[in-house]
């Protein structure tokens, strides 16, 4: 749908019991893994149906079956009353199912408009109609609340959140009756999520069904109508009411255990030592200006801020991956000017976009884990794969990687488990300062708690951590000290214990209203 047409309002509302999609005992087998092992799912027109499940439960696989990317090995799918087995993604789109994938699937060297209409460009006698494409893209972007993104801009030059918007635009460019969203909020900040929900409500009001995947329970409560829970490729609970089902029950169905979304208990302030990292007056024009900060050994410093506030760019500059226009970065007294120098000095970074910035998808897990440390395992230039594997296996275990082996290619891991591999890389081999950019993006509730514990343990052992997260509770729950960043400036700093979520949110979103903002 490119624009809500008036006659659409006659379509039954979300509450109507009209099933558009039904899955019965769907099975999908990958070599050695039954990714789907009997899935039941029932989606009604105009509802937001949430899929919940741990990393590797099979959520993404399920939606890829619906999208025609994978083919089910067994089971029945009924779409609008008829048997449905899309052979290709195009077939699924023609049938009215649009999908926003967990891993962005945009073509970096095409423009925003070309990406939005990829595969179904408006054309005349085989010539693409660029102006029409651009103006229709502009309409969709405006509807998404992002009129500021130019349709002609190259996708490569966009930040992660904007890329997500382009993915959304692509889904909306189809005349879809069902839109599937695989962790769309993972890259979005607070206000962006609100915007996303507004769009979803608009869609469902037109009778369009939405399948929504997220690891954030609060979101599911906010936007969801019904929830289906997957565990190890099976439906363990179907059609639970999204708002009223107790968290304990949901988590129990997901994990078979009863863990809660918890942070490790608060701890004593780390010892007053000389700072490990000193950043002074760091500036990159158009991204951030005049940023100064310190991280002491054993300290966790959290940066809160919206996507686009310059946080990721700041981390990359500290890491030596971008050249600052002004200012200095010093690690243990020594200036950092390149990534190699940073890594040699014991700095590590888990970047924001794991697929394009961090992983060798076709290489085995252990080689990905040791990508930054294989030289440390090596003896006179000869690699020690045995040692690497053993160390990776220990790390994989401590992060609850699923499945547990470390020889399979990273490509075959679920999104959340790929993220664990990226974080795991820096747990190996002598990291003294860890920069984490959205470390729990796409990581499920259980593993998230594990990851928090791992980060805390690192800090206990004297590792300094600089953490960027869009989730304010994460920053507050984990950090000792909180910095707030807004539009490229550090506008606030305080111990985590002396600030609460509302204050941070206020600062993050309306920082300009506050008095005394440092220039």
């Amino acid at each position, binding site marked *: 749908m490119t624009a809500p047409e008036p006659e659409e309002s006659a379509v039954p509302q979300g509450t109507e019991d009209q099933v558009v999609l039904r899955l019965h005992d769907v099975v999908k*087998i*990958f*070599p*050695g*893994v*039954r*990714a789907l*092992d009997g899935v039941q799912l029932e989606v009604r027109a105009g509802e937001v149906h949430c899929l919940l499940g741990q990393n*590797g439960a*099979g959520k993404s696989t399920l939606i890829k079956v619906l999208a025609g990317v994978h083919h089910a*090995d067994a089971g029945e799918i009924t779409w609008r009353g008829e048997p449905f087995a899309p052979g290709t993604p195009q077939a699924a789109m023609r049938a009215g199912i649009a999908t926003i994938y967990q891993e962005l699937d945009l073509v970096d060297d095409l423009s925003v408009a070309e990406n939005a209409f990829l595969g179904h460009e408006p054309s005349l006698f085989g010539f693409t109609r660029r102006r029409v494409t651009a103006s229709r893209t502009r309409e969709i972007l405006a509807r998404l609340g992002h009129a500021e993104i130019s349709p002609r801009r190259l996708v490569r030059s966009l930040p992660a959140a904007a890329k997500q918007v382009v993915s959304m635009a692509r889904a909306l460019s189809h005349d879809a009756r069902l839109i599937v969203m695989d962790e769309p909020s993972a890259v979005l900040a607070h206000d962006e999520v609100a915007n996303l929900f507004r769009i979803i409500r608009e869609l469902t009001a037109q009778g369009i069904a939405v399948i929504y995947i997220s690891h954030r329970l609060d979101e599911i409560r906010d936007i969801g109508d019904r929830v289906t829970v997957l565990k*190890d*490729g099976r439906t363990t609970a179907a059609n639970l009411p999204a708002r009223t089902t107790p968290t304990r029950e949901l988590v129990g169905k997901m994990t078979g255990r009863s863990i809660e979304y918890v942070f490790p208990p608060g701890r004593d302030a780390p010892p007053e030592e000389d700072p490990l990292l000193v950043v002074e007056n760091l500036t990159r024009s158009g991204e951030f200006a005049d940023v100064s900060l310190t991280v002491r050994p054993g300290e966790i410093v959290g940066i809160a801020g919206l996507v686009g506030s310059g946080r990721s760019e700041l981390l990359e500059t500290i*890491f030596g*991956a971008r050249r600052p226009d002004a200012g200095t970065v010093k690690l243990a007294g020594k200036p950092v000017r390149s*990534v*190699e120098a*940073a*890594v*040699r000095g014991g700095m590590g*970074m888990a*970047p924001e976009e794991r697929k*394009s*910035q*961090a*992983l*060798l*998808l*076709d*290489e*085995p897990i252990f*080689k990905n884990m040791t*990508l*930054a440390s*294989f*030289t440390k395992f*090596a003896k006179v*230039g*000869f*690699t020690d794969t045995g040692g690497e594997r053993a160390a990776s296996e220990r790390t994989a275990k401590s992060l609850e990687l*699923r*499945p*547990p*082996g*470390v*020889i*399979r*290619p990273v490509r075959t891991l679920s999104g959340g488990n790929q993220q664990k591999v990226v974080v795991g*890389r820096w747990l190996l081999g002598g990291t003294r300062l860890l920069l984490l950019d959205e470390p729990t993006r796409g990581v499920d509730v259980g593993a998230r708690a594990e990851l928090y514990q791992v980060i805390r343990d690192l800090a206990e052992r004297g590792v300094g951590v600089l953490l960027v997260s869009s989730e304010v509770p994460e920053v507050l729950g984990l950090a000792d000290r909180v910095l707030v960043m807004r539009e490229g400036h550090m506008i606030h700093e305080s111990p985590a214990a002396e600030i609460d979520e509302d204050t941070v949110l206020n600062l993050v979103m309306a920082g300009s209203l506050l008095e005394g903002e440092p220039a």
Partner: protein
Amino acid sequence: MITETLPAEKREPRRLDEGTIRNLGLIGVLVLLVIIGIITRPELYSDPAWVRNNILVILQQASAIGVVTVGMTFVIIGGGIDLSVGAIIALAGVWCTTVATQSFGAAGMIFTALMVGIGVGLVNGLLIAYGKLVPFIATLAMLVAARGLAAQISDKQTQISTNETINAIATTRIFGIPLLVYILAAVAAAGWVLLNRTTFGRRTVAIGGNEEAARLAGINVKRQTVLLYVLSGLCCGIAAIMLTSQATSAQAGMANLYELDAIAAAIIGGTLLSGGRGTIVGAVFGVLVFSTITNLFAINNLETEVQNMVKGGIIVAAVLIQQFRYQSLTQLFKK
């Protein structure tokens, strides 16, 4: 159940098999070519002495291009391409056979050929890594420039090598096997170790597989890129000596189109043109397939034009089979 019931190691062998199966496929192609040879020239194959000698001919023909292909395989795995290999060989061959260089004896000639190879490779690498030129363009320009320089130095004449030691390289046999074949074996073995057992190899795969990820993991991408082209140049220098010895001469047109043969051999050996994956063993088999085809045409006294068409067909077929095999393999494992 997804995870706990299956021991981790049980489901890993697929990747190993994939490479092995590809090599088995190439051996199958080799066997097929021999069978065609037996059918078309049964009288030759009935003579064991001829067969033995013919095998050595094939290996000897594969030796120089094989050495070049090893270097090329590294460059392609590292995400690049080197179109200048033939030109580097010509320049190194011509430079090491000038009257002045020959006056320094065999060691001087070998040193010169290797240094020319390394030097040109270094220029390629610097242009690509620091000058930010696309590998295709940089090495294409080098192809033209190096052959031009070779023509200039040799004054477009064929330069005869009068050095006995150099000329003896091609004729020396150890245990009945030509020295050239030992050189290929040594380079291939060293290449295999370098790719699979060293940090150099790991860095190569990393920068070819995902350059940004490699950079953010602290790998010096630029230096590694330069080293890869230097390695390719070094291989060309070695090949230049081998070819000069075989022909007892060098000229600006030597090793014509070696870039195509080397790239083709690497690709049918399973190296991904987009980088990040490839094997030395496969590349050597690829070279052997090509030199066996050449031999098949030679023993049947057929035109080289037809031969080139067949080579082209084989490249396409190899790529198609690879894709098909990957799919059917996945299919197979489902059952």
